[in-house]
């Protein structure tokens, strides 16, 4: 037997990131005040297995949207690497254009993400035509996709965005994202603005499309129920850092990071028996400009001790990864058993 036979088959993730960092510079005024930095995303790593959905949750301002823009290469990371099907993505023009065929995005604001002067058909055919598809083929794709997302092409292709409802517009945006036949679709709060019944329809549509087109999803949301419903893996962000990530069932059943617990405790549950008794979260997240030197959650954490003034690493805990000193008893946190 060779070595190869012994190693388990490695599956290449559809999209992965290693140690992404992004800092924005804030200049308060031009009068000699030193520039300050907003740590939008720090040491951000994940793998997105083919055919799965990764949910990203966190409070507003925690860097979820910056993460999406980093993954889309709409902003340039300061350091770190993004891999598409195992291949590093360079920022060379031609590579980026190819990358953009494979990774598409659906935005939160369904009306701002459609050009008000273009018909629905023109909006959907735009991207394929940028990539050299003929008008005729692009139109055919647009009609097929509109039909697939549940909008009658004969009625909708010639319309303008303001004549559609929010749910219809978001369906158009989904069709638009699929027009390039991508491998990965990033949804940045894509269903947050829809009302609940429409949201449910769109979520089911997304699940169908994922299976049908062999897609992988990154699903950014502040709605923990939605993330639980649609995701296979979940990633919890706090102030630009991943504090916990793992299979969605495990994270929701046994959250290990105090922040994840607080988040889940704040989640409205239909069943009163399910209520988690966790440390209530107090105060606002500190400004991402003046970050605490150690654990970023320490100022709001009920379990904070002196060791929390040092930056915790991501610790493996079975299939989940937790960035907390309590995750490893050897680190000397007195309450380490709390999260076991």
């Amino acid at each position, binding site marked *: 037997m060779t070595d190869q036979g012994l190693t388990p088959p490695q599956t290449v993730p559809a999209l992965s990131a290693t140690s992404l960092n992004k800092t924005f510079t804030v200049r308060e005024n031009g009068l000699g005040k030193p520039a300050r930095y907003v740590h939008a995303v720090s040491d951000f790593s994940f793998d997105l297995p083919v055919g799965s959905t990764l949910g990203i949750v966190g409070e507003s301002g925690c860097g979820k949207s910056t993460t999406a823009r980093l993954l*889309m290469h*709409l902003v340039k990371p300061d350091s770190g690497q993004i891999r598409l099907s195992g291949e590093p993505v360079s920022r060379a023009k031609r590579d*980026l*254009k190819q990358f*953009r*065929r494979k990774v*598409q*995005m659906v*935005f*939160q*604001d369904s009306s*701002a*993400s*459609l*050009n*008000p*002067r*273009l*018909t629905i*058909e023109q*909006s959907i055919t*735009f*991207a394929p035509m*940028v*990539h050299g598809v003929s008008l005729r083929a692009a*139109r*055919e794709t647009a*009609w*097929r996709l509109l*039909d*697939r997302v549940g909008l009658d*092409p*004969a*009625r*909708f*292709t*010639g*319309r*303008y965005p*303001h*004549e559609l409802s929010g749910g219809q517009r978001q369906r158009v*945006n989904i069709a*638009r994202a699929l027009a*390039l036949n991508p491998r990965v679709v990033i949804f940045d709060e894509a269903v947050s603005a829809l009302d609940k019944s429409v949201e449910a329809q769109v979520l089911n549509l997304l699940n169908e499309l994922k299976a049908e087109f062999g897609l992988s999803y990154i699903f950014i949301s502040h709605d923990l129920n939605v993330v639980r419903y649609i995701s296979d893996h979940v990633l919890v962000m706090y102030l630009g850092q991943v504090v916990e990530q793992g299979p969605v069932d495990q994270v929701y059943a046994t959250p290990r990071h105090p922040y994840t617990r607080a988040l889940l405790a704040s989640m409205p549950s239909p069943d009163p028996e399910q209520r988690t008794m966790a440390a209530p979260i107090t105060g606002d997240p500190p400004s991402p400009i003046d970050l605490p030197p150690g654990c970023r959650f320490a100022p709001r954490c009920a379990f904070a001790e002196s060791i929390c003034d040092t930056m915790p690493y991501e610790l493996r805990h079975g299939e989940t990864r937790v960035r907390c000193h309590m995750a490893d008893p050897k680190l000397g946190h007195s309450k380490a058993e709390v999260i076991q």
Partner: protein
Amino acid sequence: MTVSENALSAQPTRSQGYWSNVWRKLLRDRVSVACMIVLAVIILSAIFAPLLTSYDPAIGSVVQRLKPPLTDGYILGTDELGRDMLTRLLYGGRMSLIMGILPVLLALLIGGTLGTVAGFVGGWTNTIIMRATDVVFAFPSILLAVAIAGALGSGLLNALIALTVVLIPPMVRVTESATTQVRSLDFVEAARASGAGGLTIIRVHILGNILAPIVVYATSLLSVAIIMSAGLSFIGLGTKPPTPEWGLMLNTLRSAIYSQPLIAALPGVFIFAVSLSFNLLSDGLRSAMDMS
């Protein structure tokens, strides 16, 4: 699942486009319609002046000087050299309108391009273009136009250059702010995320959305430009006699202000009518385009 050929060739329910909506709204506004009629009459009669009058605008008869309006053969009277006023006003409209409209079109082209680039590219490019614009902006426009035309020497081309230079900065500003607004919208981001290049994005996604404010602004600039070009001719920096031009006619008829005030005021009436019409039309356009 493929869409059948029939479905593709069938004409889908096509909604009213933005511009046809604007046009319909404009036609419902009485003031705008009145302005468009006034402008159409003046512009068409200037173009077809030779068909409307048999006089030569440059040749007069000394015995027929400063006849009041409605004199035999001279509907609007004659000027200080005995030339038919109506003829001179019609022919003069050609020069006045050209000198009012052409600088605005040139400023729209140059200023619009600079503003779009500044707004879309941002960063240093924006800073350089906008600060350079501010320098020109710091001077009162009519003074600057006089100064430039004076420095270049009198003449039509120089007056044209002076007016264009003066009109570029406001055009850059309006375009830049409109572009900056549109650029930050998600559909531009989405276009970028689908791999479209800058020029394609500007052509497909930016221009259509900034055109409305730019057209409104350019229309209001037309009323300013008409007055400024007449002003330049009035002080002798534009058209040269005997070419008829409204501003120049105002100047040469100054001496007649006491003997024939009606005649002396006629070119001013035309300047006023055209300028006001453009101004009101721009207001009408603004409200017609203001729909989301």
